[in-house]
């Protein structure tokens, strides 16, 4: 048995499932925060959390948050350098998540204008893709064990 709570339903944009989302990075010491609001592609081929372009690095370091070095695997199997920190996904479209939001890894790499929401975020939701009609639905929910 399972239950679902509706979050959003939308049409594809340029053939891809995009959502508008609000991501927040907080400095835990000073509580200063940076908000990143942009379109994110729902990417089931990406096993990380949230990916944005590296130009956001400056905004984040301005509030005194340390970014950790590391690598990210890109299409083709290569590894490239990237920076990371902890972030909170607070909103997608009109749906707000309970504060402080969904905790996620935020990766800063590349220069794409849109961001990515990977499997580490998508694992919280039930998503149905209707390819022929270019339509998708997101719901939060859980599966309960059969008695």
């Amino acid at each position, binding site marked *: 048995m399972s239950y679902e709570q509706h979050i959003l339903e939308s049409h594809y944009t340029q053939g891809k499932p995009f959502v508008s989302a609000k991501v927040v990075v907080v400095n835990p010491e000073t509580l200063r925060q940076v908000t990143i609001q942009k379109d994110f592609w729902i990417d089931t081929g990406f096993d990380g959390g949230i990916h944005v372009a590296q130009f956001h690095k400056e905004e984040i370091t301005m509030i005194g948050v340390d970014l*950790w*070095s*590391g690598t990210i695997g890109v299409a083709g199997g290569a590894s490239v350098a990237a920076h*990371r920190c902890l972030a909170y996904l607070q909103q997608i479209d009109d749906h707000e998540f309970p504060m402080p939001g969904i905790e996620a890894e935020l*990766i800063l790499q590349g220069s794409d204008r849109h961001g990515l929401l990977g499997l580490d975020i998508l694992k919280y939701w039930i998503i149905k893709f209707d390819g022929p009609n270019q339509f998708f639905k997101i719901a939060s929910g859980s599966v309960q064990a059969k008695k």
Partner: protein
Amino acid sequence: MIAVTPTETTLKKEELTTERPLLLMTTIEQENHEFIGHQYLGLGTSIDTQDIFPLRDYPLQLKDNLHEIRAHGFPLNYPWLPPNAIKLLNKAKKGPLTEKELITLMELVAERASAHFQLDAGKFAALTFRGRVVEVSDTRVSLLKKLQDRRYQEQIFVWRIGFNAFSGRL
């Protein structure tokens, strides 16, 4: 009458049962034997058998081994880094590394640290560029949460043990 002569097997058996067993000891074992003898079997020495792990025939009393192990030349809590990594670390002191060099350094350090500290594949770890383990966690988010709550003097990078990227394309 038939004269019965002991066969070779029976002779060997007799030798083994009647003679004092010959202990083949290496030089190190002999030294250990003498050392332990001096430590525990001296005249007037009473042995407390509590909390003693028997090692062969001799007691090994861990609580008495208080002498600190000191390694001169390199610290024990850092893995021994390969020459390529040392070269890159020295280069990093003089100026910034290229992206390729940085990735190579992280790969070398992570590989050596994983082996040295026997980190499990799939775990998420934060390491210093000299190979010291700062944090290990089961998930990306829990590792980043732990890191965010503390300040570190050394520069840190994050790594997924046994993988070439912390996260990415499947």
